[in-house]
C-alpha cells in the first residue's frame, strides 16, 4: 500500500474559539461567501477564524497535536463511491505534562471538486448510525443538477479522538474516514470520460479543556506546507456524453417517438369498433 505521509506542522497556533466556531468551522465562511472558492476559503482559514491563545498551552507550543494523512483512495466503482482517508494522530509526549482534563476531536474539511457532491441526507444518516460524531455538507448540495449547472461543495466531518488525548495516551492513533460521494453528470466531451481530481483536505484538532474556573476550546490547524505528495493523487474518471452523438441521437429519438405514436394512432383508429360504428351511422 502506497503511503501518503504528509508531515503536517502546526501553522495556526491554538486558541480560544469564538462561539461561532464551537460548531462547524466552515459555517461562517458559507454564511459570508455563499459558495466555495479555494483562495477565499484559505484566506478565511488563515485570517478570519477568530483565534486567541489558549491559556493552558501558552508555554507548551510543541504539545499541539499533529494529524498526518497516511493514505487516501477512492473505494468502489461507478457514480457512487467512498473517499477513504486514513489519518494518524500524533503528539509529542515529552512536551505535555500536567494538562487538565480535556477532550479532542479530529476535523477533516474535504473541498470537493466540481462534479462531485456529498448527499447531506446520507451524512445525516451516517450521523444517526454513529459513524461520525458530526458531519455536514456546505455549498451547492443540490443532488440533481449536472456538473455544468452546479457549484462546488465542501464536507466537514468531526471524528472523536477521545479524552485526554494530549497527554499522549493516544499517541500514534490511526483513524479512517470514509465519505460517500456521488458524481454529477459531467460536461460533454469527445473522450467519453471526464477527469475529476481531488485535492488534499484541511485537517484540524479541536480540544475542549476544563479549566479551574471555566472551560475553553482550542483548535489546532494542520497544513500540508511540508507535505511530500507521493504519486497516488486521486482521480475519478466519470463517464460523459459524447458530443459526436448529438445529431444522430436527437434525430433517431424523434423518429422513434413519431413512429411509435403513429402506430398507436393507426391501431386505435382501426380497432376502436364503436367509434367506427358511430361514424358509419352518422
Amino acid at each position: 500500500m502506497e503511503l501518503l505521509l504528509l508531515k503536517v506542522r502546526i501553522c495556526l497556533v491554538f486558541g480560544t474559539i469564538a462561539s461561532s466556531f464551537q460548531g462547524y468551522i466552515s459555517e461562517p465562511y458559507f454564511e459570508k461567501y455563499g459558495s466555495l472558492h479555494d483562495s477565499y476559503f484559505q484566506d478565511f482559514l488563515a485570517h478570519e477564524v477568530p483565534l486567541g491563545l489558549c491559556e493552558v498551552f501558552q508555554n507548551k507550543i510543541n504539545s499541539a497535536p499533529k494529524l498526518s494523512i497516511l493514505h487516501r483512495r477512492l473505494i468502489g466503482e461507478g457514480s457512487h463511491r467512498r473517499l477513504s482517508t486514513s489519518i494518524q494522530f500524533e503528539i509529542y509526549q515529552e512536551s505535555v505534562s500536567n494538562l487538565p482534563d480535556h477532550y479532542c476531536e479530529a476535523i477533516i474539511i474535504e473541498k470537493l471538486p466540481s462534479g462531485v457532491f456529498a448527499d447531506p441526507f446520507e451524512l445525516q444518516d451516517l450521523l444517526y448510525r454513529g459513524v461520525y460524531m458530526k458531519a455536514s455538507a456546505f455549498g451547492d448540495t443540490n443532488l440533481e443538477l449536472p456538473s455544468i449547472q452546479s457549484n462546488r461543495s465542501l464536507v466537514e466531518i468531526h471524528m472523536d479522538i477521545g479524552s485526554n488525548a494530549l497527554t499522549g495516551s493516544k499517541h500514534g492513533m490511526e483513524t479512517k474516514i470514509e465519505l460517500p460521494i456521488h458524481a454529477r453528470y459531467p460536461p460533454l466531451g469527445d473522450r467519453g470520460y471526464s477527469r475529476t481530481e481531488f485535492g488534499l483536505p484541511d485537517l484540524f484538532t479541536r480540544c475542549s479543556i476544563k479549566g479551574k474556573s471555566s472551560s475553553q476550546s482550542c483548535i489546532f490547524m494542520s497544513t500540508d506546507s511540508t507535505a511530500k505528495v507521493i504519486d497516488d493523487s486521486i482521480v475519478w474518471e466519470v463517464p460523459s456524453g459524447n458530443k459526436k452523438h448529438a445529431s444522430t441521437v436527437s434525430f433517431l429519438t424523434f423518429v422513434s417517438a413519431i413512429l411509435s405514436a403513429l402506430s398507436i394512432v393507426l391501431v386505435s383508429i382501426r380497432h376502436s369498433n364503436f367509434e367506427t360504428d358511430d361514424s358509419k351511422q352518422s
Partner: protein
Amino acid sequence: MKRVDFRFIILFSAFLRIFLIIYGEWQDTHMEVRYTDVDYFVFSDAAALVVSGVSPYKRSTYRYSPLIAYLLTPNSIVHRSWGKVLFSISDLLVGYFIRSILKLQGVSDEICIYSVMVWLFNPFTFTIGTRGNCEPIICAMVLWIILCLLKGKLLQAAFWYGLVVHLRIYPIIYALPIVLALEPCNFQSGKRLILRKWSSRDIKAAQRSSTKNVSDLVQKLGVIARLLTKERIQFGLLSGTVFFFFTGIFFYLYELEFLHEALLYHLTRTDPRHNFSIYFYHIYLHYEREFSLPEKLVSFLPQVIVQLVLISRFRKDLPFCFFLQTVAFVAFNKVITAQYFVWFFCLLPLILPWSNMKPKQGLVCISLWVGAQTHWLLWGYLLEFKGKQVFLCLWVASLLFLAANTFVLICVITHHTCSPLFRPLEHVNRTKSAKYKQ
C-alpha cells in the same frame, strides 16, 4: 365460498405487507443496501419539519403536496413506519376497489379474484407501498373516482378528482375523458346508471343502441349544448374549486416554494440523468444550451397526439381509456422512473375481463416488456455502478423499451372487447332486466 376466497386474499396480502414492512426495518438496520425507498426518507424528513413548524420544502427534493407530509406526521410522533402502513393500506384498498368496480359491471367472482390478484400479488406493487412510496394512495384515489362515477356520485368524484390532481398532477390526463363520459344520455347525477354487463358482452348491439342515441342527441341539441351539460359544469367547477382551494391554501402557507416544487417542477421537468425515457440522452447532449420552442414542441407532439387519439377513440370505455392513456403518457414522458409503472398497474385489472388475449399472447407481452426493462437495467447498472461509458447502448435500450411499450399497447388494444361503460339511460325502460340495482 368466493367471498371467503377474497377475504383470504386480502388477509394474506395484508400479512405479506406487514411482513415486508418488518423485514424492511431489519434490512435497513443490518444491511448496507436499504429496503426503504429514498423517497420515504424525503417524506419523513418533510413530515418532521412540519411537526417542528417548518415548511416541508426546506427538505430538498421534496416535490409533493404538503398534504403528503401532513399525512406522515405520525412518522415523527408514533413510529417511523407509519407511512409505510398507510401506503400499504391504500395498496389493499386498491385491491378492494378493483373488486368493487368489476362487480358493478357484473364480472364473475372468479374473474374478479384473478384480477385483484394481478394487483395484490404483483411483486412490483406490493414492494412499492412497503418500501414507502406514496403512489398507492394516488392509485386508490383514481380507482375511487371511477367507482364514484360508476355509482353516479358525481360530486364525490369531482371532489376526489380535484384533490388527486392537486396531489399528483398526472391524473389531469383523465379530465377530458371523464368530462366526455358525462353524456346526458348516459350519465345524470342522482339517477341510477346503466352499466355494461360483462356476462352479456353483446358489443355490437350495445354499441349500436348507444351510438344511435348519441347521434340523435347531436341532431337535437347541437354540439355546444351537448358539451355544456349540467353534469359537466358541476364536475368541472367542483374539481377545479377543490384543486384551487388546496393549491391556494398551500400557496398562502408556503408561497412560491410550494408552487415551484410541487407544481411547476413537474410541469417543466427535464432530467438529463439516465432514466427509461427515450429523451434522456437527447436532453443530456443539449443540456448546455436552452431548447428552442420548436424543439420543445416536437418532443411534446407525440404525447399530445397519442393522448388525443386515445381519448377520442376509447372515451366511452372509461377504465380502458384511462389505462391506455396512462401507459402512453408514461411511455412518451420526458422522465420515466419505475414508480410510474404503478399508475397503470392499478388500472390493468379493470380491463383484463374484457380482453380476449390468449395466455400465450399475454405471456409474450409480459416477457417482452419485462425483458426490455431488464435489458435497460443491465446497461443502467454498467453506467451507474460500474462507471462504464455506455450512454449510447443505454439510449438504444430506452428506444427498445419504448418499442416494447408500443407493442404491448397495440396488443392490448387489438385484443380488447370495446364496450361503452355507460349504457343510455333511455335504454332503461326498454331493458329493465339489465338495470343495475344499486
